[in-house]
């Protein structure tokens, strides 16, 4: 009996006494928001997360749920906007990535989580939400006041930049369309969907955010806070974003001032740097960009900018079988032919290649501007903004303000490092703030010249579609000698075409009680 008692006691001891916290479990690879916003240093972790998202390829969280290889953040969206214009040619379908943007075959796919409109909408709203989480904590972040301003200023600029890009894709241009529906606006984290409001509401928020952002970042700068990495938004980048926004809003004075301020301290690209492949944020004119280090690169390069763009700049790239090798990105033949032989930029593209090959670099008009930095580890940086764009914004604004001499001076500044013939070239352009609405028309005025320089200098990086919408022009790919593989004969590419505005993804309507697909969708 004694034995029995002992054994039963043992059995009851086995009765696993559960400690108090037995059911409290937390993950090992995530942290709470409270911890993130405890001080300025930890808050930078949240900002760095956003910056990474800006150039992160293949992300389902910041992109589409499938077809992820055509998502790599800001640069990919600029590429889409270029592909939807007339200056950028995707010569071959390849694996299909981006080709549907190029052939205007994404609008009917708005219900899919695998296609472009979902990816764009998701990306920018995710950035906005992350920025709003930072802003919601602006009063609790501990630390130096200037550092707090620096953090808040960046978050405001990121939010403004995101709303700006959403407006460019999902509505007609601002001027003249202020009362059209905008995009849902949020200034704090919430679970309740907002209505579309108007385009004016959107630009009111953008301009307010940028005003506050530039003020805070200026104050931080004056207090001695300097940025530690070019992926971060400092005063100059915030001013650059402001310049872009003012250009769209046709606030010429504002655009000129912001652009001029923005590019202070940057030197225009010149010499050999022009041909280094636009893959390094250390380049002198790069204002803002993402740096890809080897341990953060995508294995195989799949879905990255250079995988799509590099047409086979070296045998190793050809062997690595990037998409660009088989689906080559080219410049429009007409545009190429307008570039004078003296222009150093003409070497950013092949001319006419006598014996073309069906893949690799032997292809007429194929691009050489973008190349892998290092194919062996698939690295190559993403350039978001260059000083050259600021110069061209300032030049356009000056021309619009009829300050033609100032505009000419700026073009000459560019000419020094691009085209020795610039002076002669602009001598034949008349002083006028009008431009030729035929995008393949003759360059007559100084404004024509500036817009042309934009098309050449900013090929791939500024989104040609945005200019097409802003200038209220159309385009035509179907001309004699065209090298386009999709001529868009069955789609309207006339000024103001509904094709230029993307529909809002189905999923927005599914979850937004303040939006109804029957009445709030863009015209299909």
């Amino acid at each position, binding site marked *: 009996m004694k034995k029995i008692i002992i*054994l*039963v006691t043992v*059995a009851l001891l*086995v*009765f*696993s006494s*559960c400690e108090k916290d037995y*059911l409290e479990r*937390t*993950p*090992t690879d*995530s*942290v*709470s*928001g409270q911890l993130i916003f405890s001080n300025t240093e930890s808050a*930078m*972790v949240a900002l*760095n*997360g*956003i910056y*990474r*998202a800006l150039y992160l390829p293949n992300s389902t*969280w910041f992109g589409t749920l499938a077809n992820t290889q055509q998502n790599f953040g800001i640069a990919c969206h600029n590429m889409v906007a270029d592909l939807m214009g007339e200056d950028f040619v995707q010569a*071959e*379908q390849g694996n299909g990535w981006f080709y549907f943007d190029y052939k205007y075959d994404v*609008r009917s*796919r708005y219900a899919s989580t695998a296609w472009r409109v979902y990816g764009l909408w*998701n990306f920018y*709203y*995710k950035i*906005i*939400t992350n920025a709003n989480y930072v802003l919601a904590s602006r009063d609790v972040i501990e630390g130096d006041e200037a550092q707090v301003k620096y953090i808040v200023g960046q978050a405001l600029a990121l939010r403004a930049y995101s709303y700006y890009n959403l407006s460019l894709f999902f509505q007609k241009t601002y001027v003249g369309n202020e009362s059209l529906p905008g995009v*849902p606006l*949020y200034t704090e984290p919430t*679970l309740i969907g*907002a209505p579309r409001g108007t385009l004016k509401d959107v630009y009111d928020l953008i301009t307010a955010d940028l005003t506050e952002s530039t003020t805070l970042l200026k104050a931080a700068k004056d207090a001695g806070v300097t940025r530690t990495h070019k*992926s971060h938004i400092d005063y100059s980048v915030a001013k650059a974003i402001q310049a872009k926004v003012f250009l769209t809003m046709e606030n010429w004075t504002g655009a000129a001032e912001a652009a001029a301020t923005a590019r202070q301290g940057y030197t225009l690209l010149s010499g050999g740097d022009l041909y280094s492949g636009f893959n390094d944020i250390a380049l002198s004119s790069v204002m803002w960009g*993402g740096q890809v280090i*080897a*341990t*953060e690169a995508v*294995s*195989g*390069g799949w879905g990255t900018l250079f995988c799509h763009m590099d047409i086979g700049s070296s045998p190793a*790239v050809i062997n*690595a*079988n990037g998409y660009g090798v*088989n*689906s080559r990105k080219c410049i429009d033949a007409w545009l190429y032919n307008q570039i004078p032989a003296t222009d150093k930029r003409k070497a950013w593209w092949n001319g006419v290649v006598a014996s073309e090959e*069906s893949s690799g670099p032997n292809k007429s008009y194929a691009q050489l501007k973008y190349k892998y930095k290092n194919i*062996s580890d*698939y690295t190559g940086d993403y350039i978001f903004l260059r000083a050259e764009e600021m110069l061209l914004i300032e030049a356009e604004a000056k021309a619009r303000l009829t300050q033609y001499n100032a505009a000419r001076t700026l073009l000459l500044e560019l000419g020094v490092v691009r085209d020795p013939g610039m002076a002669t070239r602009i001598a034949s352009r008349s002083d006028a703030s009008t431009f030729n609405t035929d995008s393949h028309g003759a360059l007559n005025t100084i404004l024509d010249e500036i817009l042309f320089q934009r098309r050449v200098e900013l090929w791939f990086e500024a989104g040609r579609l945005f200019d097409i919408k802003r200038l209220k022009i159309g385009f035509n790919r179907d001309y004699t000698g065209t090298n386009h*593989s999709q*001529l868009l004969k069955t789609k309207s590419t006339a000024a103001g075409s509904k094709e230029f505005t993307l529909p809002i993804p*189905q*999923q*927005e309507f599914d*979850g937004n009680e303040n939006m109804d697909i*029957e009445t709030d969708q863009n015209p*299909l």
Partner: protein
Amino acid sequence: MKKIKLLLTGLLLVLACGFAYAQNIQVTGTVTDGTTGEPVVYASVQLKGTSVGVATDLNGNYTISAPADGILIFSFIGYTTQEVAINQRSKLNVAIAPDAVALEDVLVIAYGTVKKESFTGSAEVLKSEKLEKRTVSNVTKAIEGLATGVLVTSGSGQPGEGSSIIIRGYGSINASTTPLYVVDGIPYNGNISAINPNDIESMTILKDASAGALYGARGANGVIMITTKRGAAQGEKIKVNFRSVVGVASRAIPSYDLLDERGWVEYQFQAFKNEEIITNGTNPSVAGAKAIQQMLTGPSKVFGLNEQYNPYNYKLSELIDPATGKIRSDASLRYSDNWMDEVTASNPVRQDYNLSVTGGSEKAKYMASIGYLNEEGILKTTNFKRYSGRANVDAQPNEWVKFGLSTNFAQTSSNFLSADGSSTSNVFYSCMLMAPIYPIYIIDDNGDPVLDATGEKQFDYGNNRASGAQQNYNSVATLYEDHFNIINTSVSARTYIDFLDFKTGPIRGLKISATMGADYRNQDQHDYENPYFGNAAGSAGRSYKYSTNMLSYTLAQLVTYKRTIADKHNLDVLVGHENYHYKYNYMMGAKSGFPFGGLYQLDAAATVITAGSYENNYTIESYLSRLNYNFDDKYYFSGSFRRDGSSRFARDIRWGDFWSVGGNWRLSEESFMKGFSWLNNANVRASFGVQGNDNVGGYYPWQALYDLGFPNAGMNGAVVASIENKDLKWEKNENLNIGLDARIFNRISLSAEWYKRETKDMLMDYPLAMSTGFTAYDKNIGSMKNTGFELTIAGDIVTNKDLRWTMSIMGSTVKNEVLNLADKPEITSGNYIIKEGEVLNSFYLPRSAGVDPATGYQLYWVWDTDSDGVRSEEYITSDKAKAAASRVIVGNRMPDLYGSISNDLKILNMFDLSILCTYSIGGKILDGLYSNLLDPIYQGNSLSSHLSRAWEAPGDITDIPIAQLGTNIQTSDRNLINASYFTIKNITLGYSLPKKWMKSIGVENIRISAVADNIAMFTYLNGMNPQYNFSGGTDYAYTPTRSISLGLDITF
């Protein structure tokens, strides 16, 4: 007096085992099969109340020394145990009845067993004889057709892979719908493929709350209980069994019907020509010539450089008549390759060897087995190997303590194809979709392979192939050069100790038990991509190592009390406490840059690409109880209650209560039923209860978290990953089950059940406006209902000495209805919709209006919506965008009726034949694979042979639109295929060598069998797998396999 005697017997058992009674007599006799009259060899003859026992010899004879007033117990596996009083007789011949029903008598249920006729819930037993017939390496693939109410996917053909299972319809929208697996009484976290199907004694599928509520938090989707074989019963001979099955595999589902070279080239030409006329406005008279030019030099470069991929012996310009589009009749092929055939192994071998020993004595029983399985896949380079061993021991050293241990060790190793979906490395995508004109190897002008310096054929890397045809890639080559391997090492143990289980005395019926079960799995995965070509060519090869280990354990303490009061009141009470801990560790590292081929390990590579690790923890604590009561074995009642706390939920809300009540009335035991002698048994059952589901997405679903996986150029970066919901709680399933069982004329068994399963507080990805930065967050909001009817009829059609034929027919229905969603009554997702009042995952598509006989365009039914949201009348158009905006619900995958028909025959007592067929009627499938063959995105893809009936000229009436380039057709209800099918799952023919031959060599039984598994499937569309998944989609997946095997089964 009786009690005293029992006590005395017990005492004697403990103290003086082996002492003989004084007044013993010698009893002899023969034990025979009650049906066949044949002697039963090695049957057990045991003196009741003692450990004294003997076995019959090869003639069925026995001799035993026993008291003249004793009782003998005759038993043998597969026969009803019979007790016969000696009554002073010295000669006692006994016929024992074989009874298939006998094995069902005891049901394995949650925390114990019950007699089948007393069971108030719904459960289905799958016995080893049925499971063993299927040639499967993963037992989940053997379930199909053996139980009602269970839907099973075909599972991948990758050796070792299993099937997915849902029990009684979808239980949830966003949470898990997977049943809980329980092995030997304790929830199992290991790999199912680590369990050798040969070690399984039975599987019990618990379908309703009465059966499953005791698994509380995890039981909502049903429970699959796996019981492994135990040691032999007392007195039985030690048995050694050897089984081997060796066979070959092939595709179970054929390829889709595709256009051959001629058809493909002619269709392409037509598409290019139409493109010229329609899109480019070319004059039809010259469009043919221009199309040929486009095919040669256009952006899609169909025939490669200088027509290198023109498979014919004429130049394209001479090959095709630009007017008719036909290939000249005297053209012949230079070469003809089939990529899918190239990667398919011919007759891959599967070998399965198992050896087991069972035995036992009065105080201990044991079972031990070892197994070796080597299965080659039908995709070259893929295989699965398993080494497994099991030892199950039960011991009872004395009356008040009993303990047992079952352990399983398994190491599985598989080479597999890691790529899936539409990635080029997935050969089930890339080889199937490779247009028939492209050669695998580099060929010369005559179509002969160009050999390299060593005389080997060289892979063609196709720099010049058309888009979609693996440019600069060769998936056949990478299949050989890249390696993907997983090694799983699993150890599982289950132990129990029962105390105080006295059969007599004041505390008889009381039992205190402690159990512990642990599952440990270590998984090593190695992915290697070669340095020469393919995905990692640019970085000189890549190697990934993943090491994960999982440990889960369950500790339980149980007290049971079982008493019969006043002879008629039978009481069985259980209370207990349990806790569960799951711990998972993940670690990975990858490097690139190998100096040359043939090196696979990380140390040989130069550059670290990435490394990472994390850990997950998940815990549950539970209190449980059950009461079973019956009156006079006529009226049964059972009730259970369990309280679970889960670490997945916030502190204040993590405890959930789950319960069930059930009743069973044995109608046939009532006196007023005695007149119906043809009615052997009849009972009606009903149960109701609530089960829970905490598998709601991740281990920390309620917490607001920042994901640290976003470093920015070496600086730590994090983004908002989830929203806090402290109210997140259990998803609950309310289950109502009503059943009727009957056996009539001692021949036909019938079981019918109706159920209603309602999911409440359904956890959903509550849709948020995407613009809030989240598309959804976890919230308990919805409800859903599944109802169904299940019927099993099993009967002995012929029962005589030379032929026994039993047949079983099963049929199930399931009706699903989404009752309540969030504030918006519908959620669309791609081509699917979830909508209140409709079936979950209904297809939401535009409706086809056929092909316009005038233009050949695909037409759709559409409507317009004005600015006030008012819809116009429906009209017909070919406008894709309008079609995309005019979608309606057009069916779903759920079948109207599904089930199985099985036949088992025993002929001349030597041959056994069984045939299992399954069927499914109703439901639809959106076959994306077929859609892609009809309307491919890329020019370099293969095409469905149905395109040969494409519209050609005005007036043509057809269902296939005009040939055009690129995806021109909106997915619509024309892409839905009837999902009904009929399969012949298994035919097994066995031959047991006659017993008399066996005597001479001292072998008990030898059976030789031929097994054909997954033999045939009849569907509406050749190539389609209607069992790919539960939502009615298809994918480029490892195709299921058919196998034909020979088996040998020897028992000593």
